[in-house]
Protein backbone atom coordinates (compact mmCIF):
# COMPACT_ATOMS: atom_id res chain seq x y z
CA UNK A 1 0.00 0.00 0.00
CA UNK A 2 2.95 2.26 0.69
CA UNK A 3 4.11 1.75 -2.87
CA UNK A 4 0.69 2.45 -4.30
CA UNK A 5 0.42 5.81 -2.47
CA UNK A 6 3.92 7.05 -3.25
CA UNK A 7 4.42 5.70 -6.76
CA UNK A 8 1.12 5.11 -8.46
CA UNK A 9 2.78 4.78 -11.84
CA UNK A 10 4.85 1.76 -10.64
CA UNK A 11 1.79 -0.12 -9.47
CA UNK A 12 0.00 0.43 -12.76
CA UNK A 13 3.10 -0.66 -14.64
CA UNK A 14 3.25 -3.92 -12.67
CA UNK A 15 -0.42 -4.66 -13.15
CA UNK A 16 -0.09 -3.97 -16.83
CA UNK A 17 2.76 -6.45 -17.18
CA UNK A 18 0.72 -9.22 -15.55
CA UNK A 19 -2.19 -8.49 -17.83
CA UNK A 20 0.03 -8.49 -20.88
CA UNK A 21 1.58 -11.81 -19.95
CA UNK A 22 -1.81 -13.47 -19.79
CA UNK A 23 -2.82 -12.09 -23.15
CA UNK A 24 0.45 -13.09 -24.77
CA UNK A 25 -0.14 -16.68 -23.80
CA UNK A 26 -3.46 -16.68 -25.54
CA UNK A 27 -2.01 -15.09 -28.63
CA UNK A 28 0.79 -17.69 -28.73
CA UNK A 29 -1.69 -20.52 -28.57
CA UNK A 30 -3.80 -18.97 -31.32
CA UNK A 31 -0.84 -18.58 -33.65
CA UNK A 32 0.18 -22.21 -33.01
CA UNK A 33 -3.27 -23.46 -33.96
CA UNK A 34 -3.31 -21.33 -37.11
CA UNK A 35 0.05 -22.74 -38.21
CA UNK A 36 -0.72 -26.41 -37.72
CA UNK A 37 -4.35 -26.53 -38.79
CA UNK A 38 -4.79 -23.96 -41.59
CA UNK A 39 -8.29 -24.88 -42.77
CA UNK A 40 -10.43 -24.70 -39.70
CA UNK A 41 -13.97 -23.41 -39.27
CA UNK A 42 -14.55 -20.63 -36.79
CA UNK A 43 -16.89 -22.58 -34.52
CA UNK A 44 -14.50 -25.49 -34.02
CA UNK A 45 -11.63 -23.05 -33.57
CA UNK A 46 -13.40 -21.32 -30.71
CA UNK A 47 -14.14 -24.65 -29.05
CA UNK A 48 -10.53 -25.76 -29.36
CA UNK A 49 -9.18 -22.52 -28.01
CA UNK A 50 -11.47 -22.68 -25.01
CA UNK A 51 -10.25 -26.16 -24.18
CA UNK A 52 -6.60 -25.20 -24.56
CA UNK A 53 -6.82 -22.08 -22.46
CA UNK A 54 -8.35 -23.81 -19.48
CA UNK A 55 -6.01 -24.04 -16.54
CA UNK A 56 -6.98 -26.87 -14.25
CA UNK A 57 -6.85 -26.33 -10.48
CA UNK A 58 -4.99 -29.05 -8.64
CA UNK A 59 -6.96 -30.21 -5.59
CA UNK A 60 -5.25 -31.90 -2.70
CA UNK A 61 -4.60 -35.49 -3.79
CA UNK A 62 -5.49 -38.50 -1.66
CA UNK A 63 -1.90 -39.31 -0.86
CA UNK A 64 -2.49 -39.53 2.89
CA UNK A 65 -4.04 -43.01 2.75
CA UNK A 66 -1.23 -44.52 0.70
CA UNK A 67 1.29 -42.91 3.00
CA UNK A 68 -0.41 -44.42 6.05
CA UNK A 69 -0.51 -47.87 4.42
CA UNK A 70 3.21 -47.75 3.77
CA UNK A 71 3.79 -46.67 7.35
CA UNK A 72 1.83 -49.67 8.63
CA UNK A 73 3.77 -52.06 6.40
CA UNK A 74 7.12 -50.77 7.55
CA UNK A 75 6.00 -50.93 11.18
CA UNK A 76 5.10 -54.60 10.81
CA UNK A 77 8.48 -55.35 9.26
CA UNK A 78 10.25 -53.52 12.05
CA UNK A 79 8.37 -55.36 14.78
CA UNK A 80 9.76 -58.71 13.79
CA UNK A 81 9.02 -61.97 12.09
CA UNK A 82 5.67 -63.66 12.11
CA UNK A 83 5.52 -66.58 14.51
CA UNK A 84 4.27 -69.72 12.74
CA UNK A 85 1.49 -71.67 14.34
CA UNK A 86 2.71 -75.14 13.42
CA UNK A 87 6.24 -76.49 13.94
CA UNK A 88 8.53 -75.73 11.03
CA UNK A 89 10.56 -78.33 9.14
CA UNK A 90 14.00 -78.85 10.57
CA UNK A 91 17.05 -78.81 8.33
CA UNK A 92 20.80 -79.31 8.57
CA UNK A 93 20.96 -81.84 11.36
CA UNK A 94 22.45 -85.27 11.77
CA UNK A 95 21.39 -88.43 13.52
CA UNK A 96 24.41 -88.31 15.83
CA UNK A 97 23.44 -84.98 17.38
CA UNK A 98 20.39 -86.39 19.13
CA UNK A 99 22.10 -89.11 21.16
CA UNK A 100 21.66 -87.18 24.40
CA UNK A 101 17.97 -86.66 23.64
CA UNK A 102 17.42 -90.41 23.35
CA UNK A 103 19.14 -91.05 26.65
CA UNK A 104 16.93 -88.45 28.31
CA UNK A 105 13.82 -90.15 27.01
CA UNK A 106 14.88 -93.59 28.25
CA UNK A 107 15.49 -92.20 31.71
CA UNK A 108 12.15 -90.41 31.67
CA UNK A 109 10.19 -93.50 30.69
CA UNK A 110 11.86 -95.69 33.29
CA UNK A 111 10.71 -93.23 35.95
CA UNK A 112 7.15 -93.17 34.62
CA UNK A 113 6.36 -96.88 34.52
CA UNK A 114 6.17 -98.92 37.71
CA UNK A 115 9.08 -101.13 38.55
CA UNK A 116 7.57 -104.58 38.85
CA UNK A 117 5.56 -105.06 35.70
CA UNK A 118 3.03 -107.85 36.05
CA UNK A 119 0.25 -109.16 33.86
CA UNK A 120 -2.51 -107.56 35.90
CA UNK A 121 -1.05 -104.10 35.48
CA UNK A 122 -1.89 -103.76 31.80
CA UNK A 123 -4.54 -101.11 32.20
CA UNK A 124 -2.38 -98.97 34.43
CA UNK A 125 0.45 -99.02 31.91
CA UNK A 126 -1.88 -98.17 29.05
CA UNK A 127 -3.23 -95.15 30.86
CA UNK A 128 0.25 -93.92 31.64
CA UNK A 129 1.48 -94.39 28.10
CA UNK A 130 -1.40 -92.40 26.65
CA UNK A 131 -0.31 -89.40 28.68
CA UNK A 132 3.39 -89.76 28.00
CA UNK A 133 5.59 -87.67 25.80
CA UNK A 134 7.19 -89.11 22.69
CA UNK A 135 9.76 -86.49 21.81
CA UNK A 136 13.01 -88.31 21.43
CA UNK A 137 11.68 -91.87 21.19
CA UNK A 138 12.69 -94.42 18.59
CA UNK A 139 9.75 -95.30 16.39
CA UNK A 140 9.27 -97.81 13.61
CA UNK A 141 6.48 -97.85 11.07
CA UNK A 142 5.01 -101.35 10.85
CA UNK A 143 2.08 -100.90 8.51
CA UNK A 144 0.94 -97.97 6.44
CA UNK A 145 -1.42 -97.24 3.61
CA UNK A 146 1.40 -96.01 1.40
CA UNK A 147 3.82 -98.90 0.90
CA UNK A 148 6.90 -96.72 0.59
CA UNK A 149 6.49 -95.63 4.18
CA UNK A 150 6.70 -99.11 5.69
CA UNK A 151 9.90 -99.92 7.46
CA UNK A 152 11.02 -96.40 8.33
CA UNK A 153 12.90 -96.13 11.59
CA UNK A 154 13.93 -92.96 13.39
CA UNK A 155 13.70 -90.64 16.37
CA UNK A 156 10.81 -88.28 16.88
CA UNK A 157 11.67 -84.59 16.63
CA UNK A 158 8.30 -82.87 16.66
CA UNK A 159 4.75 -83.96 17.14
CA UNK A 160 1.69 -82.07 16.01
CA UNK A 161 -1.93 -82.84 15.37
CA UNK A 162 -1.55 -85.07 12.33
CA UNK A 163 2.14 -85.62 11.71
CA UNK A 164 5.23 -87.11 13.21
CA UNK A 165 8.59 -85.72 12.14
CA UNK A 166 11.31 -88.35 12.26
CA UNK A 167 15.00 -88.26 11.48
CA UNK A 168 16.44 -91.44 9.97
CA UNK A 169 19.93 -92.91 10.09
CA UNK A 170 20.70 -91.36 6.69
CA UNK A 171 20.22 -87.81 8.08
CA UNK A 172 16.89 -87.33 6.32
CA UNK A 173 13.89 -85.68 7.91
CA UNK A 174 10.64 -87.52 7.11
CA UNK A 175 7.07 -86.48 7.83
CA UNK A 176 4.64 -89.32 8.45
CA UNK A 177 0.90 -88.81 8.94
CA UNK A 178 -0.76 -90.49 11.87
CA UNK A 179 -3.92 -91.69 10.16
CA UNK A 180 -4.02 -95.27 8.82
CA UNK A 181 -0.65 -96.30 10.22
CA UNK A 182 0.57 -98.57 12.97
CA UNK A 183 3.69 -97.65 14.93
CA UNK A 184 5.98 -99.55 17.24
CA UNK A 185 7.88 -97.86 20.07
CA UNK A 186 11.20 -99.26 21.24
CA UNK A 187 11.51 -100.16 24.89
CA UNK A 188 13.94 -102.68 26.44
CA UNK A 189 11.30 -104.62 28.41
CA UNK A 190 7.96 -104.08 26.70
CA UNK A 191 6.57 -104.26 23.19
CA UNK A 192 4.38 -101.25 22.53
CA UNK A 193 2.22 -100.93 19.41
CA UNK A 194 0.28 -97.76 18.69
CA UNK A 195 -2.65 -97.28 16.38
CA UNK A 196 -2.21 -93.86 14.88
CA UNK A 197 -5.91 -93.29 14.11
CA UNK A 198 -6.78 -92.62 17.73
CA UNK A 199 -3.76 -90.46 18.32
CA UNK A 200 -4.66 -87.55 16.08
CA UNK A 201 -4.51 -84.86 18.74
CA UNK A 202 -2.17 -82.15 19.82
CA UNK A 203 0.14 -83.35 22.61
CA UNK A 204 -1.43 -80.88 25.02
CA UNK A 205 -4.98 -82.09 24.40
CA UNK A 206 -3.98 -85.73 24.79
CA UNK A 207 -3.57 -85.29 28.53
CA UNK A 208 -7.10 -84.29 29.30
CA UNK A 209 -8.98 -86.56 26.90
CA UNK A 210 -10.47 -89.81 28.12
CA UNK A 211 -10.06 -92.71 25.73
CA UNK A 212 -12.83 -95.28 25.47
CA UNK A 213 -12.34 -98.83 24.26
CA UNK A 214 -12.02 -98.25 20.55
CA UNK A 215 -11.90 -101.04 18.01
CA UNK A 216 -8.69 -100.74 15.97
CA UNK A 217 -8.76 -100.12 12.26
CA UNK A 218 -9.61 -103.50 10.75
CA UNK A 219 -8.86 -102.73 7.15
CA UNK A 220 -5.15 -102.52 7.89
CA UNK A 221 -4.76 -105.63 10.03
Amino acid at each position, binding site marked *: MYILQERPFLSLYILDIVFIMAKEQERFVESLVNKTIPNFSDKKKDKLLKQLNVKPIMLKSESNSTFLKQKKKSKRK*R*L*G*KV*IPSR*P*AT*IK*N*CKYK*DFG*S*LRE*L*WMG*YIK*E*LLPHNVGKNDEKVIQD*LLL*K*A*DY*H*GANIKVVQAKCKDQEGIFGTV*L*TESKNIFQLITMDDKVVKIPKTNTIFEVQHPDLQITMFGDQFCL*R*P*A*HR*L*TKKFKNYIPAMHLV
Partner: protein
Amino acid sequence: MGKNTRKNKHFQVQKKDVFQRLNFLFQAAHLALKNDPPQKELARHYAQTMKSLAQKNCLRLSPHVKRNLCKKCMMILMPGITSKVRPKSGKKHELVVHCTECNTTRTSYCYPDYVLWHDKPENIAEIITLS
Protein backbone atom coordinates in the same frame (compact mmCIF):
# COMPACT_ATOMS: atom_id res chain seq x y z
CA MET B 1 8.96 -78.08 38.87
CA GLY B 2 6.52 -75.94 40.81
CA LYS B 3 7.11 -75.61 44.49
CA ASN B 4 4.16 -76.33 46.77
CA THR B 5 3.57 -73.26 48.84
CA ARG B 6 0.09 -73.92 50.16
CA LYS B 7 -0.64 -73.95 53.82
CA ASN B 8 -2.68 -77.19 53.92
CA LYS B 9 -0.89 -79.86 55.86
CA HIS B 10 -2.17 -82.94 54.03
CA PHE B 11 -1.19 -81.88 50.54
CA GLN B 12 -0.66 -84.70 48.06
CA VAL B 13 0.83 -84.41 44.64
CA GLN B 14 -2.05 -85.15 42.31
CA LYS B 15 -0.53 -84.64 38.92
CA LYS B 16 2.83 -86.27 39.25
CA ASP B 17 3.12 -87.43 35.66
CA VAL B 18 2.43 -83.98 34.30
CA PHE B 19 5.24 -82.49 36.36
CA GLN B 20 7.62 -85.14 35.08
CA ARG B 21 6.66 -84.33 31.51
CA LEU B 22 7.24 -80.61 32.02
CA ASN B 23 10.61 -81.30 33.54
CA PHE B 24 11.60 -83.53 30.62
CA LEU B 25 10.57 -80.97 28.00
CA PHE B 26 12.47 -78.14 29.67
CA GLN B 27 15.68 -80.16 29.71
CA ALA B 28 15.20 -81.32 26.14
CA ALA B 29 14.86 -77.73 24.95
CA HIS B 30 18.19 -76.81 26.53
CA LEU B 31 19.81 -79.81 24.85
CA ALA B 32 18.56 -78.71 21.45
CA LEU B 33 20.48 -75.45 21.79
CA LYS B 34 23.71 -77.24 22.56
CA ASN B 35 24.30 -78.60 19.06
CA ASP B 36 26.42 -77.04 16.35
CA PRO B 37 24.64 -75.16 14.86
CA PRO B 38 22.08 -74.49 17.61
CA GLN B 39 18.55 -75.44 16.59
CA LYS B 40 16.23 -72.66 17.61
CA GLU B 41 13.01 -73.92 16.04
CA LEU B 42 13.17 -77.18 17.99
CA ALA B 43 13.79 -75.43 21.28
CA ARG B 44 10.87 -73.12 20.66
CA HIS B 45 8.56 -76.02 19.84
CA TYR B 46 9.42 -77.85 23.04
CA ALA B 47 8.87 -74.76 25.18
CA GLN B 48 5.55 -74.07 23.47
CA THR B 49 4.21 -77.54 24.25
CA MET B 50 5.39 -77.04 27.82
CA LYS B 51 3.36 -73.89 28.19
CA SER B 52 0.22 -75.38 26.62
CA LEU B 53 0.48 -78.46 28.84
CA ALA B 54 0.64 -76.34 31.97
CA GLN B 55 -2.27 -74.24 30.79
CA LYS B 56 -4.55 -77.19 30.10
CA ASN B 57 -4.04 -78.71 33.53
CA CYS B 58 -4.14 -75.46 35.51
CA LEU B 59 -0.59 -75.73 36.79
CA ARG B 60 1.73 -72.86 37.55
CA LEU B 61 5.36 -72.56 36.57
CA SER B 62 7.84 -71.13 39.00
CA PRO B 63 9.16 -67.62 38.25
CA HIS B 64 12.73 -68.87 37.83
CA VAL B 65 11.54 -70.88 34.85
CA LYS B 66 9.42 -68.12 33.40
CA ARG B 67 12.30 -65.65 33.39
CA ASN B 68 14.22 -67.75 30.92
CA LEU B 69 11.36 -67.82 28.41
CA CYS B 70 10.27 -65.11 26.03
CA LYS B 71 6.73 -64.02 26.76
CA LYS B 72 5.56 -63.75 23.20
CA CYS B 73 7.13 -66.58 21.25
CA MET B 74 8.14 -68.90 24.10
CA MET B 75 11.77 -69.10 23.11
CA ILE B 76 14.47 -70.07 25.57
CA LEU B 77 16.56 -66.98 26.20
CA MET B 78 20.28 -67.54 26.35
CA PRO B 79 22.37 -64.37 26.22
CA GLY B 80 24.60 -64.47 23.19
CA ILE B 81 22.64 -67.01 21.21
CA THR B 82 19.05 -65.89 21.28
CA SER B 83 18.91 -62.72 23.31
CA LYS B 84 20.66 -59.48 24.14
CA VAL B 85 21.00 -58.20 27.70
CA ARG B 86 21.67 -54.52 28.21
CA PRO B 87 21.24 -52.07 31.10
CA LYS B 88 18.48 -49.55 30.68
CA SER B 89 19.68 -46.08 29.81
CA GLY B 90 19.03 -43.43 32.40
CA LYS B 91 18.01 -45.76 35.20
CA LYS B 92 20.09 -47.36 37.85
CA HIS B 93 18.91 -50.85 38.66
CA GLU B 94 17.08 -52.06 35.55
CA LEU B 95 17.93 -54.58 32.87
CA VAL B 96 16.47 -54.95 29.41
CA VAL B 97 16.31 -58.39 27.81
CA HIS B 98 15.72 -58.36 24.06
CA CYS B 99 14.66 -61.51 22.17
CA THR B 100 16.18 -61.61 18.68
CA GLU B 101 13.58 -63.93 17.16
CA CYS B 102 10.38 -62.00 17.75
CA ASN B 103 11.87 -58.58 18.53
CA THR B 104 10.24 -58.11 21.91
CA THR B 105 11.84 -56.65 25.00
CA ARG B 106 11.29 -57.12 28.66
CA THR B 107 12.55 -55.15 31.64
CA SER B 108 13.41 -56.53 35.04
CA TYR B 109 14.78 -55.16 38.25
CA CYS B 110 18.06 -56.14 39.85
CA TYR B 111 18.31 -54.38 43.17
CA PRO B 112 21.25 -55.55 45.28
CA ASP B 113 19.27 -56.64 48.37
CA TYR B 114 16.17 -58.04 46.70
CA VAL B 115 14.86 -61.57 47.36
CA LEU B 116 11.89 -63.05 45.51
CA TRP B 117 8.77 -63.86 47.51
CA HIS B 118 9.06 -67.47 46.37
CA ASP B 119 12.57 -67.78 47.76
CA LYS B 120 11.99 -66.48 51.25
CA PRO B 121 12.15 -69.31 53.76
CA GLU B 122 9.12 -68.01 55.70
CA ASN B 123 6.79 -68.53 52.73
CA ILE B 124 7.76 -72.11 51.91
CA ALA B 125 5.44 -74.58 53.60
CA GLU B 126 6.75 -77.91 52.33
CA ILE B 127 9.33 -79.24 49.90
CA ILE B 128 8.38 -82.52 48.22
CA THR B 129 10.83 -84.52 46.14
CA LEU B 130 9.37 -86.74 43.46
CA SER B 131 11.27 -90.00 43.40
